[in-house]
């Protein structure tokens, strides 16, 4: 019971932190409005998918170092397929790339299960493999994206009669919420979801409870691959190209997972926390830019915030632990 309260408390705390930061942002830049919020969400998009991909394997007791490389590969694949192709062709590209992510993620999982090499090493190896594959697909940044795809994350939804509110609902946010919920909510309610938490919490106990450990692990990695592919598509949608060199998504995803209250080690946490953590981290970045902080100092600030928040979390856990 207390555990539940504590966990939800952490997410609530993050939400409060986000709101406070938002208010601070308005103070720094009084003109900061709905359009800027839309920019924020678009910036969040690839990070959010990367974090979702990381969250699911961390809950399953693993870690996926290949998230960034997977995004790069799916992104260049999508961009190069759509290059010079018709708008309709993209209707085929999107499911193709998503399937590719799912399959490659499953391969990650299978390699872990079959070789019994620790996940951190397997995914380190696949990081190189996927990166290499991305370079073979596109030797340099390039490719293109279908216009309608690009349009799905630009602008806001229009709710008739509520222009004031709909201005604050960017399409990118809708896309993000839909994509995450469509997978996460059914998963969380299913036995499969329980199994994923179970193998993360105690593999032995899960096995003894009749959980098909290997299959569950493979599925967790497959879903991670799927989220990463969404991240890759998001990259292509926002930049209009594919870049074979992975961006800073790996470390960012691990950091946000931990900030979001998911224990590295598995079995605990949810998706909401890490996603809110991503919003917080992006907004911090915005504030640093708005404040015209010396760029060399921003790295110090970002690192310090990360350490301080996690230390604070550790501190309150220590305090609330029965003496």
């Amino acid at each position: 019971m207390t555990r539940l309260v504590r966990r939800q408390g952490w997410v609530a705390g993050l939400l409060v932190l986000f709101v406070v930061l938002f208010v601070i942002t308005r103070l720094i830049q009084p003109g900061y409005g709905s359009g800027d919020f839309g920019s924020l969400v678009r910036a969040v998009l690839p990070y959010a998918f990367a974090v979702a991909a990381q969250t699911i394997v961390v809950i399953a007791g693993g870690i996926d170092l290949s998230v960034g490389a997977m995004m790069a590969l799916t992104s260049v694949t999508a961009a190069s397929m759509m290059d010079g192709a018709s708008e309709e062709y993209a209707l085929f590209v999107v499911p193709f790339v998503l399937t590719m992510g799912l399959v490659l993620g499953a391969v990650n999982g299978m390699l872990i299960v079959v070789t019994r090499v620790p996940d951190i090493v397997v995914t380190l190896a696949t990081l190189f493999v996927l990166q290499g594959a991305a370079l073979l697909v596109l030797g340099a940044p390039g490719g293109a994206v279908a216009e309608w795809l690009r349009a799905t994350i630009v602008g806001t939804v229009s709710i008739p009669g509520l222009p004031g509110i709909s201005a604050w609902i960017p399409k990118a946010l809708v896309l993000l919420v839909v994509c995450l919920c469509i997978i996460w909510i059914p998963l969380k309610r299913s036995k499969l979801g329980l199994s994923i938490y179970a193998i993360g919490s105690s593999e032995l106990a899960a096995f003894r409870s009749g959980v098909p450990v290997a299959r569950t692990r493979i599925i967790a990695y497959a879903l991670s691959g799927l989220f990463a592919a969404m991240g890759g598509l998001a990259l292509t949608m926002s930049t209009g190209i594919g870049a074979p060199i992975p961006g800073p998504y790996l470390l960012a995803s691990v950091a946000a997972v931990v900030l979001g209250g998911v224990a590295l080690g598995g079995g605990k946490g949810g998706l909401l926390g890490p996603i809110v953590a991503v919003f917080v981290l992006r907004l911090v970045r915005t504030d640093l830019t708005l404040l015209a902080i010396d760029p060399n100092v921003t790295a110090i600030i970002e690192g310090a915030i990360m350490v301080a928040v996690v230390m604070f979390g550790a501190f309150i856990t220590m305090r609330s632990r029965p003496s």
Partner: protein
Amino acid sequence: EAKYTIGVSNTVQGNGWREEMICAIKAQALASGEVTKLNIAHRNTDAAGQLEDIRNLISAKVNAIVVNPADPAGIMSALEEATKAGIVVVAVDQAVTEPSAYIISNNQEQYAYLGAKWLFQQLGGKGDVVYMRGAAGASADSDRDKGFKKALAEFPDVKVVHEVFTGWQQDQGKQQILDFIATGSPFNGIWTSGIDNVIVDALVESQTPLVPVVGADNAGFVGQLNSVEGLVGAAVTNPGSIGGAGVTLALQILNGKKPAEQTVLVEPQLWENATEEGKAKLKSVADPSLSPEWPVSISIPEWTTYTKDQIIACKGPGE
């Protein structure tokens, strides 16, 4: 009468060239006297991250943005938004595809072409060359590759015996060339994409006969061209001070002096030590007090007005 706020977006941090670019931007902003504040987004990220940074700069309501693009096409949408918001956009170092943006750039293709051509001529149009590229998948690298290939096409008897990506990392470059030397394969010249002084070091350390080396105008390499016994080589300029030029261009536009062309190319120069005249030039530009990773061309005549002290102090307006 300082009145402008200028935003800067750059996506590689911790590399001497980019650091010099940032310092040049700060120094020029200070020297111009027209800039009240610089908002600098300077970190390691990709095109999507740069989109974020540019949009943040738009939110910050800067008057102009000087951007070193992570990718020419990838940041188009944000640049378009910026111009729509009335912000002057100047891309430095590389071109961008957004038509409304102004470009003042080093000519990467020309950079590679110039150095490679000199090297091939130096070899008498014949021989085996080691081709040490930058980072695989980076757009500057692929532009340079075009220039290199162009020169190569002009010299059919020159062969690339070894092609490798240094990732613009000193340690990787050094290990790679040492590995190659160990294979015992003969080679007559080395073209590098700016990871140059460690290559010369490796040749000296392993007591291999020195072959002509082409690099960039980094302080360390220029020093070597002047001092290493028997080293023949050429440094091709690739001034990091282009950032300062970007600021100047942005201010000119803000003040209503639009350039005739959207794109202004700063042509690279080649300094070699094969001729007496070249040696004299190299001696004059050498600057041992600079960090070895910094290009020695710390200013661009007509485009930058700061002093050496100012760029080295690396302080912008209000700092």
